[in-house]
């Protein structure tokens, strides 16, 4: 019992160490800085759009600002997450890591949490910037902007988990593309469900149903429309779907750890 506790404590320490290292590594990435600066410029660009909107600056700033946060968050997630594990394998630094008593699961989870922390800083920063901008432009603080940013962060983390899994089975660029594909498909998840209900043959129905279950439902936690007053939010339902996305991440990371365990290093 005591030995198991020691091992568990070791695993947590290993995850924290890998996560911290990944955080330092990714946060120093110059590409990330450029992307974030570009995103901030795009958010400020909302001011120009607002100026031609016939006194709708606040709405334009919120709407296009959140689209910018989503787009850049997903791009960063897809391209950086794809290299997280792959780079370690290609540079052979993974051999050094696995020469120590570090489990594959701890490695995958540590990498994920490290990037999650970086994305937390990046998306949180963009969200706060947007919040201040809408406050200045729209003439009032909108807590919904921060809530929507938090839910965008959750979607982006799910993309990271999926991309980490893909990066264990394929090349980095393909993993990025597949991750972006999953994000787009996650926006259309309800269409797949409609397809499964069309009843055009049992096979189509079954395949559509399987695809619907596999693809993460990002729409369910998307509250951008509510920020501009086009939707009322059922917070209890959003919270449940948020838990669903977290469970989805656990499954994706579990699959990635499983694939890593089967690899010879």
């Amino acid at each position, binding site marked *: 019992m005591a030995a198991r506790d020691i091992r568990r404590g070791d695993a947590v320490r290993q995850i924290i160490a890998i996560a911290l290292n990944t955080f330092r590594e990714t946060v120093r990435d110059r590409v990330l800085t450029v992307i974030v600066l570009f995103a901030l410029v795009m958010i400020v660009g909302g001011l120009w759009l607002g100026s031609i909107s016939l006194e709708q600056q606040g709405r334009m700033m919120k709407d296009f600002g959140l689209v910018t946060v989503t787009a850049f968050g997903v791009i960063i997630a897809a391209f950086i997450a794809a290299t997280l594990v792959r780079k370690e394998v290609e540079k052979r630094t993974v051999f050094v890591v696995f020469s120590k008593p570090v489990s594959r699961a701890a490695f995958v989870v540590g990498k994920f949490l490290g990037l999650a922390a970086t994305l937390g800083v990046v998306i949180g920063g963009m969200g706060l910037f947007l919040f201040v901008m809408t406050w200045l432009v729209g003439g009032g603080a909108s807590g919904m902007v921060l809530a929507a940013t938090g839910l965008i962060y959750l979607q982006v983390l799910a993309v990271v988990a999926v991309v980490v899994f893909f990066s264990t089975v394929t090349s980095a660029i393909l993993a990025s593309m597949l991750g972006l594909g999953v994000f787009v498909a996650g926006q259309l998840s309800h269409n797949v469900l409609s397809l499964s209900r069309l009843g055009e043959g049992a096979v189509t129905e079954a395949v559509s149903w399987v695809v619907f279950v596999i693809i993460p439902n*990002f729409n369910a936690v998307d509250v*951008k429309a509510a920020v501009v007053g086009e939707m009322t939010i059922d917070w209890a339902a959003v919270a449940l779907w948020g838990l669903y996305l977290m469970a989805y991440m656990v499954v994706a990371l579990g699959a990635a750890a499983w694939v890593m365990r089967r690899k010879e290093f």
Partner: protein
Amino acid sequence: MRRLLLVLAVLVCLGAVVAFQVTRPERAASRPKVFVPSASFFEDFSPGFRTSIADAYYLYMVQYYGEHIKSDGRLDSMVDLVNLVTRLSPHFIKAYQFGTFAMLDARQTPAAYDLLQRGVVANPDDWRLPAMAGFLVYEFGRGEAKDEVAAEWYAKAAAVPGAPAYLARLAATLTAKGGEREKAALMWAQVYADGDEYSRAKAVAALDQILPAEKEARMRALAPLMGTMPGDEFERLVSALFEDFL
């Protein structure tokens, strides 16, 4: 030396780029009939981004209106654009307001009325749309019952919590007999008070036609409008209407 040549080459290219852009022939005006996708397409395929798409089309709609109203006056796709924006974002009040005037300019009065009716159903807590419907019926409606129908719209607007007090007065004025010029001035003053730059320009032009041309008479005719809008708005309207006398 090599470095200097490189810098020179870059500067020459920069000059060429700027010169090309500056001397480029002016872009031809866009076609009056443009492709407008159906709202259900966006509703089905990107529900999470529908308001962003609505906003993008709203900006395009404003640009399309500005471009054509000042050139060929053809607004063939205006109705489709306004309907697309308001179907994707049914609570976007500004889109209904701007869209109504744009449709009137496109000579699509029935479509403008349909739009406002749809807006009122989607936004029962907003007084601006029924008030606008009242204005539309009064100004562009036909038949003897038009004043009555317009008054009903104003009464409906006045019944919305938070609606300005002058709406009830407008409803009462409309049901009274006679004073057509005063009624019309009141309606347009209301358009000015609640409108954006486009509708304000229209209101000033319309009031300029309705009100007497002589300075003193115009002053007297304007006096009853003072209580129908905030003081600073009234002052702005007065200075716009007396521009020619200054």
